[in-house]
């Protein structure tokens, strides 16, 4: 199929022709074969891992563990979402992990030691992240030092900054109930259903209005059946999720009842929508991809390349701050290890596993979430199997290598089959 399409570039373009569902599927297959694999490897990986761990450790598929997965993966997923922005422009931020630690430490000191209210703590953490991103971005762009080196230096320095803020490494507990609720609280059951209804209705309205608009203008559009199937799929997925999370998951329901959608899921969902919108629907997002694809072309086209690149670093560090807040909320404390050890590498791994390219020009926020899910499932499942941390690191590394291999191969296929 792909060969047919590629060897007949002379075929007439037909705007307005409704492509049949079969055509739609064939078009997707052709895309995959020519190297645009998109979310396919990550989704396949998630399904395969769930089947495997579910068979080996049935408790993996319990509702309580589903909630665990969200909690364990949330911080990494946040940092990975931010990393997508620097990966898309072909840069890297190795300091994002410890940047999240610095921001969390700033918040902990303000909340616990100064006794300030939570909006100030969270605001200060995010402002710290933005300031860090501004600094890193300015150094990379204005001084022309490779981001690898700049953020490696920042990685070392921030490790020290965390120690200094925490007075040579003490542990500060977080007592603020609002902050603790970010990763620890749940919605009421009805709130989960209400949110589901609003989300699906909004998605359906967007999809259908887009379909109508494109049909009205005589532009190529997906068959209505495909659009409806997409809406139905999202509705089914979210309904299943909300239903499961609304089940009782406490081991001892008489003592304490645990039900409802975790608030961190809502936070992740909101960030996903926000950053997807920025990446795909705004001029800044378009320019981000252009800079990652061909910075020289972007410059000639009048794109403010420097500003775009600095903004990418600001978003990355800002999201690292959000990740730090989530991690601090989940642990109910901040210590020198917050955002340290493997957090950064798991985050980069998550983005790459999801389909972001280390070569730039490619990557989505969805990729970060899917990749984050893969990383969280591997760690959670192998933990349940009682495997040592050593084995877990080894396997996560192997999966990352596999994902980078898929990226490299899909680039190779793109070059082989895409052009002639």
């Amino acid at each position, binding site marked *: 199929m792909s060969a047919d399409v590629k060897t007949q570039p002379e075929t007439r373009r037909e705007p307005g022709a409704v492509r049949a569902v079969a055509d739609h599927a064939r078009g997707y297959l052709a895309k995959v074969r020519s190297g645009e694999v998109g979310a396919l490897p990550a989704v396949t990986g998630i399904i395969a891992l769930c089947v495997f761990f579910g068979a080996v450790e049935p408790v993996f598929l319990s509702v309580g563990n589903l909630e665990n997965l969200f909690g364990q993966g949330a911080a990494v997923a946040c940092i990975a979402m931010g990393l997508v922005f620097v990966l898309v422009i072909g840069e890297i931020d190795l300091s994002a992990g410890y940047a999240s630690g610095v921001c969390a430490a700033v918040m902990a000191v303000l909340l616990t030691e100064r006794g300030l209210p939570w909006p100030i703590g969270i605001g200060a953490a995010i402002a710290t992240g933005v300031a860090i991103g501004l600094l890193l971005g300015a150094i990379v762009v204005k001084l022309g030092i490779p981001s690898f080196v700049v953020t490696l230096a920042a990685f070392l320095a921030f490790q020290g900054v965390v120690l200094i803020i925490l007075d040579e490494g003490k542990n500060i507990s977080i007592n603020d109930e609002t902050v603790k609720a970010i990763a620890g609280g749940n919605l009421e059951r009805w709130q989960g259903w209400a949110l589901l209804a609003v989300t699906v209705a909004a998605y359906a309205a967007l999809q259908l209005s887009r379909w109508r608009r494109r049909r009205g203008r005589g532009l190529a559009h997906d068959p209505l059946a495909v659009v409806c199937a997409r809406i139905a799929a999202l509705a089914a997925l979210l309904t299943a999720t909300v239903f499961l999370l609304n089940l009782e998951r406490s081991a001892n329901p008489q003592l304490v009842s645990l039900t409802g959608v975790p608030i961190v899921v809502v936070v992740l969902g909101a960030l996903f929508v926000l950053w997807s919108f920025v990446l795909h629907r705004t001029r800044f997002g378009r*320019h981000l991809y252009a800079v990652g694809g061909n910075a020289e072309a972007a410059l000639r086209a009048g794109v403010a390349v420097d500003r775009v690149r600095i903004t990418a670093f600001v978003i990355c560090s800002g999201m690292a701050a959000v990740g730090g807040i989530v991690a601090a909320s989940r642990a109910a404390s901040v210590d020198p290890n917050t955002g340290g050890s493997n957090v950064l590498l798991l985050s980069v791994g998550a983005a790459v596993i999801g389909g972001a390219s280390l070569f730039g020009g490619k990557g989505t926020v969805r990729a970060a979430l899917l990749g984050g899910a893969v990383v969280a499932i591997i760690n959670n499942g192998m933990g349940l199997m009682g495997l040592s941390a050593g084995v877990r690191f080894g396997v996560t590394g192997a999966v990352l290598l596999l994902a980078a291999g898929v990226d490299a191969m899909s680039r190779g296929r793109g070059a082989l089959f895409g052009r002639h």
Partner: protein
Amino acid sequence: MLLELSRVSKSFGPVEVLSEVDLAIDAGEVCALVGDNGAGKSTLVKCIAGIHGVDGGTIAVDGRARDISGPRDAAALGIEVVYQDLALCDNLDVVENMFLGRERLHGVVLDDDAMEQLAAETLDGLAVRTIRDLRQTVASLSGGQRQTVAIAKAVLWNSRLVILDEPTAALGVAQTRQVLELIRRLADQGLAVLYISHNLNDVFAVADRIAALYLGRMAAVLDAADATQSQVVELITSGRSGALGLTETNGART
């Protein structure tokens, strides 16, 4: 005259790259610019495009001398350049590339549908039938299709003069023909085209007039219909051909 260069000079340090070059291009015609490597073709283009300022002489558009001090000034005057290395983003699709840097917005949201429609109309207007799917990435296009996108991008902006720098250098025979047909169509639609090429077959296939640069000086501007290939080759290699060309080619002007 749409564009009129008179006595344009440009030096880089002690090296005089352009010396009192005269050239005029009218709407609806393809003017080919030929010359050996180092003759000053690229420098001349960059002066017109506003990338280099000129040291002497004037560039007039619509009979008025203009100060073109940047690519934006050139674009404002309706001058668009399609560079040899294309300047397309491989990871963006056809529409995204055509509107890069000049996206249509609906509030803060990209108006992708309007852009796609305009892109489709522009390609239809140029009778381009080689690009099937406007939403495929440029990476998946052939060299000729990519060149077509680059040219269509240049004409999208009510441009009046399109400068093409070696547009067929990397193309096969069939694709070269397609691009040449597209260039002819631009002129037939009333645009002025300045076409830079090394390939004299291509030049004679599409050009109305041929301007030959020799060591930074304009050796001659010929009507393509009256000129022969050997004349043009002589102008390129020695700056003169019979009665045509520079009377003194060792650097001194007569």
